[in-house]
């Protein structure tokens, strides 16, 4: 079972103890990015298996219908992909 996406090979990740904040670092030279609120939820669900239904899980977490958040989620994930913070597909063996 795989997740929708995974951290890039040049991405450092730290999640706060309360799970509310995700810190990402471009390795090896920075910068550090901070994901809070819905952004942190998208990261959490997108990197957690299974990939199937992950946007629905985000929608349930934020109390909105999937259709209402789909475009924002898509744009956010595209942004992460452009910044090379995430990669698609299963982790390297």
């Amino acid at each position, binding site marked *: 079972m795989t997740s929708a996406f995974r951290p890039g090979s040049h991405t*450092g990740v730290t999640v706060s103890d309360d799970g509310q904040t995700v810190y990402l*670092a471009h390795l090896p030279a*920075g*910068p*550090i990015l901070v994901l809070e609120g819905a952004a942190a939820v998208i990261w959490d669900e997108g990197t957690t298996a299974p990939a199937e239904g992950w946007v629905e899980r985000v929608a349930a977490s934020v109390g909105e219908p999937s259709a209402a958040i789909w475009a924002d989620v898509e744009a*956010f994930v595209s942004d992460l992909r452009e910044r090379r913070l995430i990669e698609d597909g299963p982790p390297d063996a």
Partner: protein
Amino acid sequence: MATHEATEVPTAGASVPLEVRIGFAHASLQWIADRCGADLLHVKGAALDPTLVPVRGYSDADVLARPGQVRLLLDELRGHGWELINSFAYGSSFEHSATLRHKDFGLLDLHRIFPGTGPDPEAAFDELWRDHTTVTLGGVECAVPSRDAQAALLLLHAARGGKDPKAALDVEAVWTSVDEAQRDRIRAWVDRLDAGLGFSVITGTLEDHRDDPAYDLWRVAALGGTRVEEWRARVRAAHGLRGKVGVAARSVLVNVEHLTIVRGRPVSRGEVLAEFFGRPARGLREQLRRRGRKREGDGA
């Protein structure tokens, strides 16, 4: 959607806790080491096994590099935003580490030796590397010494901590309060690392090593001393005439790197000259104060 880029001066709502930055410092180092083929062990601080000392703060990242690969690593680090702010010769009386700073990840101590291990740093590193394990820091698997080796290293670090309360807590947690089986495992590592002299501070047997050239270095580190005593100890511990002359020369030169950090700006030629003449005077004043205190103590 709340995504913030946490630059050198974090914006409101995008602050990054120090321990997160330090975790990423370790991750950055491991990333660089992996790509340039260098062996690196993450020690103390965030890399410390949490079962050794449950609550222990830290303010920087410490890594021990394979001695023969230190130059390679330093060159790579400087190419990835790490700025050298204190070189090995001026780092401490043991001349064991260089300090680097990164605008996002903070401070890093790059060790070429771990004080107390030796006398062959490469052999000591090999011993630690042989039993190393990994821990995830900043999302990256980082190489760390085995738990018992970490305990031995922490005690060697505490041995030169003088009256530092943190060192006393480390000794209590890692040595005083553990059972004999754990102490035996730590002693085995002390033997493997040829670390008897430094470890004798922990067991209160430093005086058994009076004839060792590095005895004074450990005595000053453990019990305190003046600048003059520290430099004398460094000269005595240095290997060969050339090494001794090198240390003696550094004792009177000004560490411009350090002075720049202290002043927070580039220093002028005049300030370097003032420091050059001021430091021996400070050393002399310390020596006189110490002698004065000793005389008062003798008279009491």
